[in-house]
């Protein structure tokens, strides 16, 4: 059974439990034993699904329309979020949001790629695929954070930087390159969290950070599995095989030393309990920003340099 078949079964079981509860309440019959058995079965089913979860299942989970977005987390984790707009050069990109907020009373800069909750919003947000002005807005806000000594938190969720005429005319490559370049020496702590899809340079442009975390069922890769299959095998329909080969799961990337931590999701995925995931992210952020803020800035930057410096495998 694929994870989605199991999810369907889970859904049916959940409904059944609900019905039984309702029935027991209305008829005043004690069905707690029966309900308990079903609930136990439900847990087992969910556990089984997520123990056997494949890379391709994760790709689909990460792309689910119900998957919580940057704004879902921002409103739960921070207080008084004020969104700031525009790159001061060309325009405002709705695929990247950013602003200032309080984290447990302390000011921080928050930036994230933003997907839509439905087709209409996705069209406005360009499905979370930023243009150069999005990356330039992000960099502007990061520089602002540096000026005011605020830690930076980035939520990564993009299929990739947009590939179009305007994005090339306005220098997509230059915009991403500048972010990598500048982020490597920004004099404030930076934490990035891949919350769903981390696609290529478009994701990395918000993730040259002191700490890079991933939600348990998120993915982070050099390119979408479709793009990978299309380039290497001239066949985008082999995306599933590509996903298994690419090592794009949080677990793979932790093994590679590309990320520092995996944040657990509830059974079924983050959308099953956004509050709980937000709470967990929040606590991790508070603790880690506290740790990073204690470091001398030269040490923080040296550590950040070393972190990326040692990435790569080869023989000498």
């Amino acid at each position, binding site marked *: 059974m694929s994870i989605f078949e199991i999810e369907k079964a889970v859904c049916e079981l959940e409904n059944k439990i609900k019905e039984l509860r309702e029935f027991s309440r209305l008829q005043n019959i004690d069905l707690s034993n029966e309900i308990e058995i079903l609930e136990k079965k439900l847990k087992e089913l969910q556990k089984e699904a997520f123990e056997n979860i494949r890379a391709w299942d994760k790709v689909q989970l990460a792309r689910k329309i119900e998957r919580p977005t940057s704004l879902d987390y921002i409103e739960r984790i921070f207080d008084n979020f004020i969104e700031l707009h525009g790159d001061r050069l060309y325009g405002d990109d709705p695929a990247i949001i950013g602003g200032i907020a309080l984290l447990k009373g302390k000011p921080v800069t928050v930036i994230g790629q933003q997907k839509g909750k439905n087709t209409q919003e996705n069209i406005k947000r360009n499905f979370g695929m930023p243009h150069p002005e999005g990356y330039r807005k992000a960099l502007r806000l990061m520089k602002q954070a540096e000026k005011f000594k605020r830690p930076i938190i980035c939520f990564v969720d993009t299929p990739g930087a947009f590939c179009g005429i305007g994005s090339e*005319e*306005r220098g997509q490559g*230059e915009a991403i390159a500048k972010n990598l370049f500048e982020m490597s020496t920004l004099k404030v702590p930076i934490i990035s969290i891949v919350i769903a899809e981390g696609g290529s340079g478009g994701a990395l442009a918000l993730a040259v950070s002191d700490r890079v975390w991933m939600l348990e069922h998120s993915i982070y*890769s050099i390119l979408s599995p479709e793009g990978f299959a299309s380039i*290497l095998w001239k066949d985008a329909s082999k995306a599933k095989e590509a996903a298994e080969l690419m090592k794009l799961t949080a677990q793979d*990337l932790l093994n590679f030393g590309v990320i520092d931590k995996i944040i657990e999701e509830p059974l079924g995925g983050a959308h099953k309990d956004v509050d709980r995931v937000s709470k967990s992210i929040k606590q991790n952020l508070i603790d880690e920003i506290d740790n990073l803020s204690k470091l001398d800035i030269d040490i923080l930057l040296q550590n950040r*340099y070393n972190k990326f410096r040692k990435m790569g*495998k080869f023989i000498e």
Partner: protein
Amino acid sequence: MINLFKKRQYVTLSQIEKKNENYFKPFIPDGIFEKCDECGKIILKEDIEKNLMRCPNCNKYFRMTAKQRIELIIDKGTFVEYDSNLKTINPLDYPDYDIKIQNLVKDTGINEAVITGEGKINGESCVIAVMDSYFLMGSMGCVVGEKITRAFEKATEKRLPVVVFTASGGARMQEGILSLMQMAKTSAAVKRHSDSGLLYISVLTDPTTGGVTASFAMLGDIILAEPKALIGFAGPRVIEQTIKQKLPQGFQRAEFLLEHGFIDLIVERENLKKTLYNILLMHRG
């Protein structure tokens, strides 16, 4: 993206595995003539070589190997190569990747898709990195990223300027996420070099795309390009598939980037060395 980077036949012209000036070792059987893929004219290979790897009829720029480029730019006898001992491995266990690399190493005579080292341009010392599009499209995997990073680190340490010739299809798919991370690694090394007040000139040659454009290629203090070089983030085919329309003439060519403000200057091949020298002179510290 793919068909653009197909191996062209003129690869065969110009392996400068030298015994003497005119010796070259072709890696597919070839004759004395070559057909220009731009104007269709049949041309003596020797004439293409004499014309700095350009068509004598229509002036089409053919891609140069890294070795040819170093010969063109660096003073004879001054080049000292760095890190030619680094070897590529297969971090994803991608099928047949090891064999592919082994064959490329054998065919091209270089260990990976970039040659790095130190040399002089009309007597001016610099660190130089030259990518080779004949080595798996000049794509950047771990070794390319490491060599570029080390070149910048060495230049920072020795307080030398850096000249990079880019020619790349982008980050190398076969090494997955680790290739992507080379973008961050190289950009951070460029930043340190830059923060030390040192000069970096990037020269974009055909083709420069993807993760190389989105990292060190676009980070030069001064960015030069060869005429008509394809330069972009996404490959033209990917864009066409995304937006479902044909791309305008000249889109993503060096002239287009100049017009949009993303490069400083387009330089003809015969003037490259002189131009680099002049820029280096003005930054001599």
